[in-house]
């Protein structure tokens, strides 16, 4: 478990000071894949550097395994850093060193044959053992990031910090690197802290998420919870970015739009999580209350193996029937009435 307590990082520029991180408190559970999302300039990169003290917080505590990093002597801090791996957007491999030498870099002081064994083991783990003698310039972006991951894992860390680790990669490679991180999390039990500006990354592998805006933590929790019920406007806009329900509803509302809605119809947005399945429910209310339900939009996201669904339906029938149907729906799923007929 990593606890960040009242972390503040202030940068003093010539004529003003900037609070990159503002009195932020956060608990990162052991073994989780913890995503930190925010727009550029939200302070997330600074925050992640505050964990291994690459940026020393102006104030606050960074506690891991009951040790406050802020109180460590310089040489103790260097030892602690060996147990916290870090990977970067630009990979940061040493261009003058081969893949082998890059991964061996943090293994200084070990016997050559032990280093060799460890490097081969790590490269096999990340699936790039055949490039052991290549130079970074001969590798693709995804391969470079694999090498960087192997290097970050060299000292068997229990935490891996990822600073926009997939932002320089194409979508397909991003998926591969994310699933590698997911595997590592399961196999090694390593806690992964992942900084990103893409909701898709959070959706793909994170168990927990923290949303940052202007140096502040605006929302945090399990991804499924934050996703299904976003509270803060910033979170909402991130959630919105991943599916098109909102855009679709705007289209419905547009009188000149493609959809001709009878003034007697209700438009509903239904959100459901996990085992609440909407389909039998809808056919059930159709029969029971004599209303026609026309599903005009449907989307299901799978987050941490939990399905998260959104439906937009048009309800037509008698006024009484429609009202009862909506009430019945509200008993089991989240219903938002977009327009009343």
């Amino acid at each position: 478990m990593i606890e960040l307590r009242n972390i503040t990082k202030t940068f003093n520029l010539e004529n003003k000071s900037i609070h990159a991180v503002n009195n932020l408190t956060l608990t990162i559970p052991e073994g989780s894949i913890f995503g930190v999302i925010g727009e550029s300039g939200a302070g997330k990169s600074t925050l992640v550097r505050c964990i291994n003290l690459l940026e020393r917080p102006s104030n606050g505590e960074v506690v891991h395994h009951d040790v406050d990093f802020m109180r460590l002597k310089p040489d103790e801090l260097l030892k602690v850093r060996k147990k916290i791996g870090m990977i970067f957007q630009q990979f940061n491999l040493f261009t003058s060193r081969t893949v082998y030498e890059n991964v061996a870099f943090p293994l200084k002081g070990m016997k050559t044959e032990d280093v060799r064994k460890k490097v081969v083991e790590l490269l096999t783990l990340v699936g790039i053992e055949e490039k052991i003698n290549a130079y970074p310039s001969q590798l693709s972006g995804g391969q470079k990031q694999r090498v960087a991951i192997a290097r970050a894992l060299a000292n068997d860390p229990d935490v891996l910090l990822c600073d926009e680790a997939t932002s320089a990669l194409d979508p397909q490679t991003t998926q591969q690197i994310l699933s590698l991180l997911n595997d590592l999390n399961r196999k090694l039990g390593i806690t992964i802290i992942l900084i990103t500006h893409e909701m898709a990354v959070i959706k793909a592998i994170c168990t927990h998420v923290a949303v940052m805006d202007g140096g502040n933590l605006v929302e945090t929790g399990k991804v499924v919870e934050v996703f299904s019920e976003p509270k803060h406007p910033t979170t909402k806009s991130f959630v919105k970015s991943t599916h098109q329900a909102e855009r679709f509803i705007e289209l419905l509302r547009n009188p000149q739009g493609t959809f001709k809605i009878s003034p007697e119809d209700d438009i509903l947005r239904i959100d459901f999580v996990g085992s609440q399945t909407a389909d039998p429910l809808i056919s059930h209310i159709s029969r029971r209350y004599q209303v026609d339900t026309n599903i005009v939009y449907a989307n299901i996201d799978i987050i941490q193996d939990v399905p998260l669904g959104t439906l937009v339906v048009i309800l037509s029938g008698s006024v009484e029937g429609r009202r009862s149907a909506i009430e019945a729906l509200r008993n089991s799923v989240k219903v938002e009435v977009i327009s009343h007929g």
Partner: protein
Amino acid sequence: MVDGVLKYIPNLIEYFDEFLISIQETLIMLGVSGFFSFVFGLTFGVVLVVTRPKGILPHPIVHEVLDRIVNFFRSIPFIILLTALIPLTRIIMGTGLGVKGAIVPLVFGATPFFVRQVDMALSNVDHGLIEAAQSMGATPFEIITRVLLRESIPSLARGTTITLISLIGLTAMGGAVGGGGLGAFVIRYGHNRFMSDITYVSVLVILILVSLVQGIGNYVVKKTTH
């Protein structure tokens, strides 16, 4: 054939022994002052880079002082440096004349130049690499040796080549104020006594020397760039 060539260089043949000694002196001046300029230049260059406000061991006073000293010595024309340093040279080397007398001003002339080359080479190392090394728990000393210097070997090789070549020029200039080497040889005979053949052949030797240094430099750069 050989006689045909020799016909054009009568003076050189006459002073051939002195010519060989001059080449040797040039090489000694180049080697000794090159070595010290490299060591001092590298040391001061590293100090200058790491003590920068955003460097790995920030120290504003050391940085500022060193920066000004380097600028000061870089702005003095070498010919003035040669004469101005004579008292200091006497203290260090015991003489202000000849090869020995030339070495101190040569080191003073070439070191600041090389410091700037080192400064430029090390400053071009991607900050991300330093950050990566820090995240792996590397000490500042390890970052200097295993990241900064190691990563900038090609640029350092380039800087060394440029510095050595300008040092060859400076050794020749040293001849003007009683130093030794090819410069003095050319002034003594080629210039003062109008023996042009001596001038031409000496220039040819210097040209070969420069090409050799450049060739080796290019080879090192090529071999160390990945």
